[in-house]
């Protein structure tokens, strides 16, 4: 039976205008979403390049000014911006701390439309007020990004529903089921074979479409075969899950209309409702501390420490005798007091920031426990990881930037407290930010998804053997 189903299922699919249309739609969706994703990555990459070019220009200007100052020439610049002052360099010539785009960044926007991909930390800035939030259109946030992940997670299941909702019911409605059932075959086996074959042909279509789209858009799918075939593998197990649901519905529900409604209901449940409910519950159980309150707290603290800046500076120098000893002038100005008080603010803010991060972690842990309830969440998480745009990737980037901001500040502290001028010779030693992507296992969702899909097929098959053939034929 399998060889004949295999042979004629393809013939029937190829001759069906509906299936031809769906195949064309799939290719167009893959094409447009990949193109869209690539454009977004290009925009992000361009803005990073532009920011780095600005730094280069600003550095060139700084070196010229330094050269003039060191030659004892007059420079026409405000005194606080002259780069012989280490604070001027630290504040007005910051480095770009960029989250470089990964090779597969185009497949999933992930958190990229919420968070920025480069910042310029300065010596007098606060870590807590480093702005990682991306400037985005609220309309885009409302509707999401039309990327490959969106097509795979949201639209591909709808195409599978269209491919498979009436495998059995159409035979029943056209009248051919009675002829089929009069053959020495098990109807459950027959339906299973038809769905497995449709899965096989659709998988082939997905593989060919993706390869074609990648090649047309100038990407080499086989340049990184592990990543490409990992992506295909993830799509296939997700498709298998939806085919398994379709098998259950084909066996247990009835008419084509009921099947379609049942499958669309499951789509709403797994793709929209479960992720939204988990998100809502996570927010309710572990509410985030207000960012406004945190900023207000920080301002109050700053106001308090401003009043005690002399005392704070004394305490700071007592804790750092190396600065006091190495400086012969012992001259202390605004930045000496400001930087010393910044440390104190940072220490006092630590519990508030910890509670903020703690709640965020609690929320993520809670969602992590229940993400298995929706394959859509599992696939989105895997695709984000593959693209390097997951919450872990952005958290990793944020931590690297905060660490770099500290390094940047610390680099200029000895210049400040030793009242040492910044010179052209010090320029090559300026710290640079190098983003190190976090290695993550993107394929971790594949085995559990495969198990869920096979479990559903098993459940459907077991259930269908309990349901006698005559009830499938006579029920209508």
């Amino acid at each position, binding site marked *: 039976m399998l060889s004949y189903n295999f042979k004629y299922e393809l*013939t029937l699919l190829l001759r069906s205008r509906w299936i031809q249309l769906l195949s064309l739609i799939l290719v167009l969706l893959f094409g447009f979403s990949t193109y869209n994703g690539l454009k977004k990555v290009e925009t992000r990459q361009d803005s990073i390049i532009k920011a780095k070019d600005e730094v280069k220009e600003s550095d060139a200007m700084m070196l010229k000014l330094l050269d003039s100052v060191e030659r004892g020439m007059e420079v026409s610049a405000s005194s606080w911006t002259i780069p012989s002052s280490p604070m001027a360099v630290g504040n007005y010539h910051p480095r770009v701390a960029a989250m470089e785009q990964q090779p597969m960044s185009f497949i999933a926007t992930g958190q990229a439309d919420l968070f920025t991909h480069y910042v310029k930390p300065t010596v007098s800035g606060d870590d807590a007020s480093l702005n990682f939030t991306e400037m985005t259109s609220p309309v885009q946030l409302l509707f999401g990004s039309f990327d490959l992940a969106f097509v795979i997670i949201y639209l591909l299941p709808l195409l599978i529903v269209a491919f498979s909702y009436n495998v059995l019911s159409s035979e029943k409605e056209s*009248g051919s089921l009675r*002829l089929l*059932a009069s053959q020495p075959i098990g109807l459950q086996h027959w339906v299973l074979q038809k769905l497995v074959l449709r899965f096989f042909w659709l998988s082939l279509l997905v593989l060919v479409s993706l390869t074609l789209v990648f090649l047309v858009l100038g990407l080499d799918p086989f340049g990184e075969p592990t990543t490409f075939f990992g992506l295909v593998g993830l799509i296939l197990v997700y498709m298998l899950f939806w085919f398994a649901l379709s098998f259950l519905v084909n066996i247990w529900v009835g008419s084509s209309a009921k099947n379609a409604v049942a499958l669309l209901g499951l789509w709403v449940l797994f793709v929209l409702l479960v992720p939204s409910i988990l998100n809502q519950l996570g927010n309710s159980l572990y509410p985030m501390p207000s960012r406004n309150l945190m900023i207000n707290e920080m301002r109050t603290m700053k106001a308090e420490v401003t009043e005690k800046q002399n005392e704070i500076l004394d305490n700071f120098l007592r804790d750092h005798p190396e600065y006091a000893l190495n400086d012969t002038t012992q001259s202390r100005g605004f930045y000496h007091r400001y930087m010393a008080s910044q440390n104190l603010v940072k220490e006092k803010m630590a519990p508030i920031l910890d509670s903020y991060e703690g709640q965020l972690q609690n929320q993520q842990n809670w969602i992590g426990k229940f993400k298995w309830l929706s394959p859509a969440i599992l696939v989105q998480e895997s695709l984000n990881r593959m693209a390097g745009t997951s919450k872990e990737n952005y958290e990793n980037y944020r931590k690297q930037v905060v660490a770099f901001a500290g390094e940047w500040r610390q680099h200029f502290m000895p210049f400040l407290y030793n009242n040492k001028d910044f010179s052209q010779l010090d320029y090559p030693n300026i710290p640079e930010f190098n983003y190190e992507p976090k290695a993550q296992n993107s394929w971790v969702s594949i085995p559990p998804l495969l198990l869920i899909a096979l479990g559903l097929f098993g459940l459907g098959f077991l259930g269908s053997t309990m349901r*006698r053939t005559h009830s499938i034929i006579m029920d209508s």
Partner: protein
Amino acid sequence: MYGGQKALDHLNLNVKEGDIYCLLGANGAGKTTTINLLLGFIEPTSGTAFINQLNVQENLKHTKKFLAYIPENLMLYPSLTAVENLDYFSGIAGKTFSTPELKGFLEEAGLQSEAFSKRISTFSKGMRQKVGIAIALAKEAKVLLLDEPTSGLDPKASNEFGRLLRKLKDKKVATLMATHDLFRAKEVATHIGIMKDGQLKQQFVAGDISLSELESAYLNTMDYKEVAP
């Protein structure tokens, strides 16, 4: 029992090889239920159906190897050709044939050769019935179950269908045909039964009864009262 009602009641029917048994009766008499029972589509609450000496309910898959079924409206795959449909249905029944052999069956069933490679969507009901007969021939069925096969066929196609049944009779196929068509039943049947309310009310050897006698017997069984003009 079917739908809470007694669909068949003490039905005792035996169709031997080479017999063409026509079941006559009004709508709801139990003709289609009898065929559904033999196909295993419904389960009897009591009693047993046998095909080729095998209990249908106990050997559901096995008994289907011996039988072919042609419903009132034979629906095949419209986007496949006659040869492809025959190949598919023979194939899933476990029979493999070359294309010339498949064409041979279609020819034997009386389908014109120019129709062999045409899609079923272009076929008339009579042509589809011929493909159904070709499926039975290819399957080498010992039992043929027909449910109102000639309803809706024009007289020529209906006559041709009768000729095919007689050809199958010569091949020792046991045929059970549910029909309303008394004329066709008298013409092709070896045995005729009249059903009412799930019971087999009368049985005849077709050669022992004339068409008018059959008509009278049928109308009497149905309690038909002629209305005066």
